[in-house]
């Protein structure tokens, strides 16, 4: 499935890392509005760094990031968020000393994803709205992290390993929620995931990172079918 729509995110020759250390080397890719892109790769190749660079949490070193046509590579993270970039971090990182409700309320600034609507999307959160976030189970924390990212009403959603460590049934629930989000809000999603079967099955395109460099880019369906390539790039014992 190809999207010919407007390019919402345009990353050009991007170098970034932490302090002086360089993790990403000349990364280039684009994402169209409404598209879902998956970033694959082994552990420690820079997938999380890529998402955090788009959020503005790493040290930008060279290159450009254009979001909706504007250069954002030097903007503070909260400004990027206000421009429409939402992020669900790898370790969920919900605010532990806030209740579920507060976790959502602190970032909600108006917009179509009202807290009530987020509870519709993740009914389990509604049941636990007054509990401290640190008391939630792993799956609930993951839901809260995604709901929190949605609460700031993003156009682009960055998901870092949204199904890692979840029970199979919860994985299915999560995938359904993501699909529903896309259907309802025409969200653009960039997702990092190690469970490539799940990720590829539900996305449009994928890029593969290795040591901070994009080594392959292809439509997801094509990639999923090519077992030899998967094995070579991701070291998957088929």
């Amino acid at each position, binding site marked *: 499935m190809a999207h010919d729509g407007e390019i919402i995110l345009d990353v050009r020759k991007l170098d970034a890392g932490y302090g002086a250390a360089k993790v990403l080397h000349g990364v280039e890719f684009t994402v169209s509005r409404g598209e879902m892109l998956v970033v694959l790769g082994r552990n420690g190749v820079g997938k999380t760094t890529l998402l955090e660079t788009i959020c503005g949490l790493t040290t930008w070193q060279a290159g450009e990031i254009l979001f909706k046509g504007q250069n954002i590579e030097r903007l503070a993270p*909260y400004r*990027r968020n206000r421009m429409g970039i939402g992020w669900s971090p790898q370790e969920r990182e919900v605010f532990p000393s*806030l209740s579920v409700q507060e976790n959502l309320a602190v970032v909600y600034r108006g917009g179509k994803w009202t807290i009530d609507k987020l509870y519709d999307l993740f009914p389990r959160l509604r049941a636990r709205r007054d509990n401290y976030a640190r008391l939630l189970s792993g799956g609930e924390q993951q839901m809260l992290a995604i709901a929190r990212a949605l609460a700031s009403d993003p156009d682009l959603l960055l998901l870092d390993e949204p199904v890692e460590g979840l029970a199979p049934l919860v994985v299915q629930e999560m995938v359904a929620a993501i699909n529903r989000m896309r259907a309802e809000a025409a969200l653009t999603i960039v997702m990092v995931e190690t469970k490539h079967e799940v990720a590829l099955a539900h996305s449009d395109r994928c890029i593969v990172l290795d040591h901070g460099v994009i080594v392959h880019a292809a439509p997801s369906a094509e990639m999923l079918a090519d077992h030899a390539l998967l094995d070579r790039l991701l070291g998957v014992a088929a």
Partner: protein
Amino acid sequence: MAAILTVLFNGVAYGFLLFVMSVGLSVSLGMMNFVNLAQASFSMLGGYIFVTALQGYGIPFMLCLPIVFFAVAIVSVVLERLIFRYFYKTDDLTQVLLTIGLVFMSIAMATYVWGGTYQRFDMPAWIIGQKDVFGLTLETYRIFLVGFGAVMAVTLIFGLERTNLGAMVRACVDNRRVATACGLNTELIFAFTFAIGGGLAGLGGALSANLLGLDPNFPLRYLVYILIVVSIGGMGTITGTLVASLALGIADVMGKYYVPQFGSFIIYLLTVIVMLWRPHGLMGRGA
């Protein structure tokens, strides 16, 4: 009976005195998780600004209080931008050392500017003396302290702690990286909270200095009390600070009345017992 009630009232008043003295630290330590011992210096500064305004410029008492609050808030936010913000992420001990260093510096600077002597306070006539309330002879200033402290506590608890702003501050403290990526302007929120904490500390200084005597050693003298109140109350809660202040105030005054030979043991012993029993304080949120 009258004696008991008077003692009880005085305990409550002392509790509110402790509350206004320590609520500044409660905000910075409790809400922002920043061990800012320099709050005691902000209190001293508040005391000096207060005495300068009241004594030097003859500004009415009730007008002096907001002046003190805003002046100290401004000073504290300037310092926050210059120094403190680089230390939010460091560990407790580093923060203790930094801020105790600043306390030392503030003592020397206050000596330089205001001299080593105690300041003179001429409080307005309406606030000194005694009043008869329900047959008890109570000190007017203590009545004022109870009223002012109560209003302050209610304002802070419902205006700062239990609001979205309070939650935002806690979110920033919990995880600054994520908070900023979720659209919270963490720098602004911290600076704002810091200013409130500083302003409150200054207000505490202004309200307590005339009772306690104001000289350049003010910060070191009352630091221990402030620390005791805030940690017994528990990190992260203004309500806790209020409860602890009142409990300690009443216990101290009652203790001094009924068993004067124990002196300040009561307050210290209470500290040790409470902290052994509940290391996170009476209303602390735990680890």
